[in-house]
């Protein structure tokens, strides 16, 4: 019986291909939009998680709320030293100084993101040296004019990768600093290092990702006048379980030193809380799109009901014939239910494929525009939910027309023209 119903349903649908396709449209749009947003959301979550892996679960970022802060509220090197020595839940502290500038050689001049780093920086965001070496302790302490440049930067500025020993002129904030390259590191694909150090806002006006140039903290400090007024520091707890404790201890210490505990100037963000925020945003978008998609599914379902009612009317005589030769009400009900479920299932399948296609399209567009790098992920769960939903719509909106067909009186149906 199932096989026969499937046969009847497919032959009826293929007889009216255009009509079937138009009827499915609502289902296709609904399922496709959910699949698009869910697969992009999943991909985005994974991407963000991957970036956070570099930082680790025990990192907490302390930020100064720039809106409320006065000049004396910003964090300086003595604060960092105090945090490093006095709080035993803290393992490392680093506060890269970052600024946008230019680097030039005899032939090229390029935009760079210049980071002034200390020895602890390596604990947070390891620099993967390809040629040459890291900075030495002397270079850190005595603010040597030395730099480490990333591979892509070396290639752009010098036309080759191994540029150890070459001269590079840095320009930033109207100052010029001649330096020498001591190392070349792997390029950082992700924008996260900029984001994590609270540099996102200044990056907004830039087109694409600049090349990364590292220099000892105090070397960069000599370019930046207010280098001892830090708005962001990275703190690493001794173990992931104590990350909240470390964050609170740092804020307490800063507030005690500044005596500004009443204005809540400092806030801490750790991996978990940042992830929570990102998840929240993704979830809100997912729910919003799902609601719109739900409306589309209901509209699509009504379309299915409508076309099934038309189909029942068109085939009244056929129903009469089938009943006269022994089809039961259940047979007829089953036949029409099968047809509406097949209709919505095909719609759902097309929707899944279209949604996935759209997700890959969006991700390719976002990548080529340099906005984000997200690979869509389609989970089995999402497919099951999509298939279940389209089946449910078919069942729910198919039952009324099918019942109408099943309850037709055989004589009336046979007389119908």
């Amino acid at each position, binding site marked *: 019986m199932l096989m026969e119903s499937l046969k009847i349903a497919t*032959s009826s649908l293929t007889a009216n291909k255009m009509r079937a396709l138009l009827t499915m449209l609502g289902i296709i749009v609904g399922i496709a939009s959910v699949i698009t947003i869910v697969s992009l959301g999943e991909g985005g979550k994974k991407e963000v998680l991957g970036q956070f892996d570099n930082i680790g679960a025990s990192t907490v970022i302390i930020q100064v709320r720039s809106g409320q802060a006065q000049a004396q509220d910003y964090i300086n090197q003595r604060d960092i030293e105090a945090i490093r020595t006095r709080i035993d839940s803290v393992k490392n502290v680093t506060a890269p100084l970052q600024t946008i500038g230019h680097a030039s050689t005899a032939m090229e001049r390029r935009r760079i993101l210049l980071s002034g780093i200390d020895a602890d920086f390596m604990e947070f965001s390891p620099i993967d040296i390809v040629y040459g070496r890291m900075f030495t302790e002397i270079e850190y302490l005595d603010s040597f004019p030395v730099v480490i440049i990333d591979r892509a930067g070396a290639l752009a500025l010098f036309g080759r990768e191994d540029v150890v020993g070459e001269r590079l002129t840095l320009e930033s904030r109207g100052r010029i600093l001649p330096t020498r390259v001591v190392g070349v590191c792997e390029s950082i694909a992700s924008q996260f290092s900029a984001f994590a150090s609270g540099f996102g806002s200044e990056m907004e006006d830039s087109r694409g990702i600049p090349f990364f140039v590292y220099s000892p903290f105090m070397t960069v400090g000599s370019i930046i006048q207010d280098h001892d007024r830090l708005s962001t520091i990275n703190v690493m707890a001794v173990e992931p379980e104590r990350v909240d404790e470390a964050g609170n201890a740092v804020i307490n210490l800063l507030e005690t030193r500044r005596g500004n505990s009443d204005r809540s100037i400092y806030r801490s963000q750790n991996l978990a809380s940042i992830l929570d925020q990102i998840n929240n945003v993704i979830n809100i978008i997912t729910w919003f799109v799902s609601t719109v998609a739900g409306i589309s599914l209901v509209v699509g379902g009504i379309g299915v009901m409508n076309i099934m009612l038309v189909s029942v009317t068109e085939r009244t005589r056929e129903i009469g014939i089938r009943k*006269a030769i*022994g*089809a*039961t*009400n259940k*047979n007829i009900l089953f036949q029409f239910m099968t047809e509406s479920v097949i209709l919505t299932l095909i719609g759902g399948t097309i929707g899944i494929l279209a949604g996935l296609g759209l997700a890959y399209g969006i991700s390719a567009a976002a990548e080529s525009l340099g906005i984000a790098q997200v690979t869509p992920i389609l989970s089995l769960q999402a497919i099951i939910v999509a298939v279940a939903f389209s089946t449910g719509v078919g069942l729910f909106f198919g039952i009324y027309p099918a019942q109408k067909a099943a309850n037709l009186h055989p004589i009336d149906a*046979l007389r119908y023209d």
Partner: protein
Amino acid sequence: MIKYFFSTEKEQKHKKEKDHSDKQHPLIDLRDAWKTYRTGTVELTALMGVSLHICAGEFTAIMGPSGSGKSTLMNILGCLDQMDSGTYYLNGNDVNNISQEDLALIRNQEIGFVFQSFNLLNKMTLKENVELPLIYGAISGRERPRRALKALEAVGLTSWAQHRPNEVSGGQIQRAAIARAIVMDPAIIMADEPTGNLDTKTSRDIMDVFNQLNKKGSTIVLITHEKEIAAYASRVIQVEDGKILQDSSNRDDSKPEKTN
């Protein structure tokens, strides 16, 4: 009440191998059937206490002018409709007060319909049309083509099995409809004006098919308003104004038996 005596040697010989009934239990046993239709405020009593016995192997024609109630009688005999009061035993089954599902089963197993307007499904081949009752009769997919072809062979359509109704003549369509009616090997074949849409020559061909089926043992109930068509039957029942006017044997010109 009808007093119908039926047990001639000739008829006995025609009895089917498949034993649908015996003399004591007629195939159709309808008693005091009443049926009233209501459309708005108008009431039309189509059947007024009709009683009828038909035995296995008979070829009965039910005649009457339009509005006489013959179609209503056929619908009730064919289990397409149910009467308001009365009793109806079909092949020993009480079919008067049974569910829609059971009625469908009876239509599938015990009755084969042939309609004036053929009523084949145009998008299917003749063979597929003949297979339809087998599907609802839960006959296995392997068995269906064999039985459908056998039925088509019986009406001389073997070579047309793969054609669709719109590719063959009216007479051939009606033959296919007859094949569909006999494919489940039902107790009764009900033919409602089967030649109404056919020309005279084709009508004769179709009636010959019914005759042959009857000779092989099929019980046939034929509804018609044409005397020439009714002449093929061995028994003619005249219906008028919801009552049986006359019930007569066609073959041996015996005196018609008056009924109420």
